[in-house]
């Protein structure tokens, strides 16, 4: 078995990122798009931690990952609040129907 190094984590992260982008592009449910965003943020975090372990050996990458996780939590709360208003106005969370410009 090949020794696991930085490139393994980079390929895994690229795979998670691409899957997140595909998820964002294909889902019509607004919450499905939010889940795609979470996948992309996770792939970024894998990159940060892998570089912190294999390249610098310092904790800075881990600290940035904490910021990403906290921002993702705040962003999810905001997005859910927006989707609730969306649902209250249109009785659906289908993003293809969110094409009215008045509330």
């Amino acid at each position, binding site marked *: *078995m090949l020794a696991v190094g930085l490139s393994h984590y980079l390929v895994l992260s690229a795979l998670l990122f691409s899957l997140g982008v595909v998820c964002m592009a294909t889902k019509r449910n607004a919450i499905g798009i939010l889940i795609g965003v979470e996948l992309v943020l996770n792939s970024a975090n894998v990159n940060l*931690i892998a570089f912190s372990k294999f*390249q610098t050996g310092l904790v800075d990458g881990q600290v940035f990952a904490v910021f990403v996780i906290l921002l993702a939590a705040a962003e999810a709360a905001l997005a859910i609040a927006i989707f609730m208003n969306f649902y209250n106005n249109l009785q659906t969370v289908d993003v293809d129907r969110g094409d009215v410009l008045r509330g």
Partner: protein
Amino acid sequence: MDSVAAEQGRSLKDHMDDLAFYIFAAISVASAFGVVVSQNIVRTALFLLGTLGGVAGLYFLLDANLIAVIQLIVYAGGTLILIVFGIMLTSKSPWAEFKPPKSQIVLAAFVGLLMFIGITSLTLSGEVNWAARATKTPLATSPKVAEAGEALLTTYLVPFEVDLTAIGAAYLAKTEK
């Protein structure tokens, strides 16, 4: 890469770590595929839990114990619950499905594949020599949880506080109607 010389100095623990990497990577990637393929939004959220758990395992392997625990508590415990509640509050039936047109699926899969090939070919081509850019040897002692916590509350105190403010802003936006 001198694989023969690298193979000599590797202990059983290193091989177990490699095996654990492949297991956690398989869990997270398979769950991510499930997230993309599943048409049911409740199952999508459940598959996201698998990805988050697998990635948390990878953090443990990367000696980032603090991040792994935060990932499990904040992401799997908090954000995912928020998403599940959002699903329950925004669908008349939990089995409601919105199918995208087939042309969009094909286009998105093509773009995603192109993106993956582009990123991996760039990282693996040797265009960027990662080993030469490393500022440490990979076998140095791993950072401890206390070090990460200390950096968070000394060097990075201001960004940390700003980040917490963002959560407060999200809370205000949610309660204000």
